[in-house]
């Protein structure tokens, strides 16, 4: 321990797509400890939400995360609809489900590419991202936007899915299924990739349960926790699907969980299009929400998203709380990055182990207090840190 040096990973580092600071304590090539510091992406969304109407917040919620936007607007809408207590048209539920699942396919493919890049397998990265583009185009057709989809509204959805568009979705799904199966084979067979992923980033089942891990991180440790199955929302109660779990608890398991989930999602989308009833896509709900409280949650690509809304008989929420899945999974990172007994963590394992929870900083740091148009406060704090890193400065 006495010879350990600390290596700052971030706030800016090629392995990180978004700012966070992980300080790793390293002895030679071996990592003996890790500490996280976040907050570089504060936008104060929760405070801002108290000053805006529910409808405005829906669009703000969408901007919590650029990848899984539907998830957040859906959760907020769900919590609000719970308070109002009105049933939605079934067709809206089905369209929401299709949106959520398209989001998942897109997010999992994106992650697979990033993970491949983290271990230096750029060819897989490029291939996967090429196919992700097809999903992006599809999302654009279905919702009208490539990102910040604005599909969900309180009381239903804003855009219908007519027959010819649904058929196009099915066509792309067929193509994608074939591709994803190919990548699965690639990930299982490619020797060097397996060498980098097997036994890396270990999170034992009991740790995953104790630290309240969610999503693919938990499922790769053998915890069958999936909000879609436990707490069926939208149309998930009418669509059969499998909760994918693996029990090797390492990065390989997380890769395979996500690939298998992508295949499941493709089936869910097919099923949803097949079963989708006709009818209206939204009901008009009052702008003023009666006093009460509601919880909305769904299974985001990264895990459980939960929104808590407290209303006070006005058109603005009294309190709006968002918890994105990455924050729930962060406690697992120091566990994954600390060598213990037979389990050795190398410096080379840091990026892939960290990436394996699919961290999304802008989701995690959403929250708190002020909307600063010049984006600044937390940046001031990190300047000295950045200077220290960029000037090297020896030991």
């Amino acid at each position: 321990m006495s010879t350990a040096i600390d290596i700052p990973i971030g706030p800016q580092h090629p392995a990180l797509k978004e700012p966070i600071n992980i300080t790793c304590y390293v002895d030679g090539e071996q990592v003996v400890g890790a500490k996280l510091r976040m907050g570089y992406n504060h936008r104060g969304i929760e405070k801002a939400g108290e000053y805006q109407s529910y409808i405005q917040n829906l669009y703000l919620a969408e901007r919590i995360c650029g990848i899984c936007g539907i998830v957040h607007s859906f959760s907020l809408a769900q919590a609000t609809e719970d308070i109002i207590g009105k049933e939605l048209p079934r067709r809206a539920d089905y369209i929401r489900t299709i949106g959520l699942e398209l989001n998942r396919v897109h997010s999992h493919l994106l992650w697979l590419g990033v993970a491949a890049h983290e271990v230096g397998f750029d060819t897989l990265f490029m291939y996967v991202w090429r196919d992700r583009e097809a999903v992006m185009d599809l999302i654009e057709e279905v919702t009208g936007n490539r990102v910040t989809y604005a599909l969900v509204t309180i009381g239903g959805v804003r855009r219908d899915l007519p027959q010819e568009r649904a058929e196009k979705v099915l066509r792309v799904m067929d193509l994608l299924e074939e591709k994803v199966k190919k990548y699965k084979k690639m990930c299982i067979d490619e020797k060097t990739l397996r060498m980098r992923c097997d036994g890396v980033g270990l999170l034992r089942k009991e740790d995953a349960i104790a630290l309240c891990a969610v999503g693919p991180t938990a499922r790769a440790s053998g915890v069958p926790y999936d909000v879609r199955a436990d707490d069926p929302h939208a149309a998930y109660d009418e669509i059969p699907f499998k909760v994918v779990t693996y029990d090797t608890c390492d990065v390989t398991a997380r890769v395979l969980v996500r690939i298998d989930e992508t295949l499941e999602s493709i089936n869910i989308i097919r099923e949803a299009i097949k079963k989708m009833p006709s009818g209206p896509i939204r009901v008009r709900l009052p702008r003023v929400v009666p006093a009460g409280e509601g919880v909305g949650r769904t299974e985001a690509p990264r895990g459980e998203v939960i929104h808590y809304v407290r209303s006070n008989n006005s058109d603005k929420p009294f309190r709006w709380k968002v918890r994105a899945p990455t924050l729930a999974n962060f406690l697992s990172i120091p566990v994954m990055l600390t060598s213990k007994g037979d389990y050795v963590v190398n410096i080379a394992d840091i990026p892939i182990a960290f990436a394996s929870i699919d961290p999304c900083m802008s989701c995690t740091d959403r929250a708190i207090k002020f909307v600063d148009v010049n984006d600044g406060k937390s940046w001031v704090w990190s300047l000295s840190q950045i200077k220290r890193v960029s000037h090297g400065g020896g030991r």
Partner: protein
Amino acid sequence: MTLEEDVVNTLKSKLGDKILEARIQRPRRLFITVNGEAYKEVVKILKNELGVTHLSTITGVDARDRFEVIPLFSYKGIVIAIKGIIPRDSPSIDSIVDVIPGAFFYEKEVHEMFGIDVKGHPDMTHLELPDDWPEGLYPLRKDVDFQDLMKRITKERD
């Protein structure tokens, strides 16, 4: 008897009057109100009697006349919200990190956003706010105005 009622009965049989209110909003949504002192006890019972292990998040609410600390648990698909009511003049609550280790970050967040003292938490440093954040300024409290906050922050930076 539904699972939700089962949970309520278990809690009532153990704690009796300490449960101020138990409300089943709809299937799989359960809100239970308790006093701040009994808050940790409820969590312990949930963990030990019912085997609840998953804490989704802890949210704070500034209800103007009081604070509420609301951990949201997930149990067989049910969201169990335990509303711990604490007085506004001396806000403090017991830490549940020793019962549910996953509460670590959420309690830090409640502390820095609402200024609620979490007794027994091992590390009360900032989670999301910068290290040089003004002492005693708790942004999610209702008496902190949005515009004032923005002005204050931008002024300090310049």
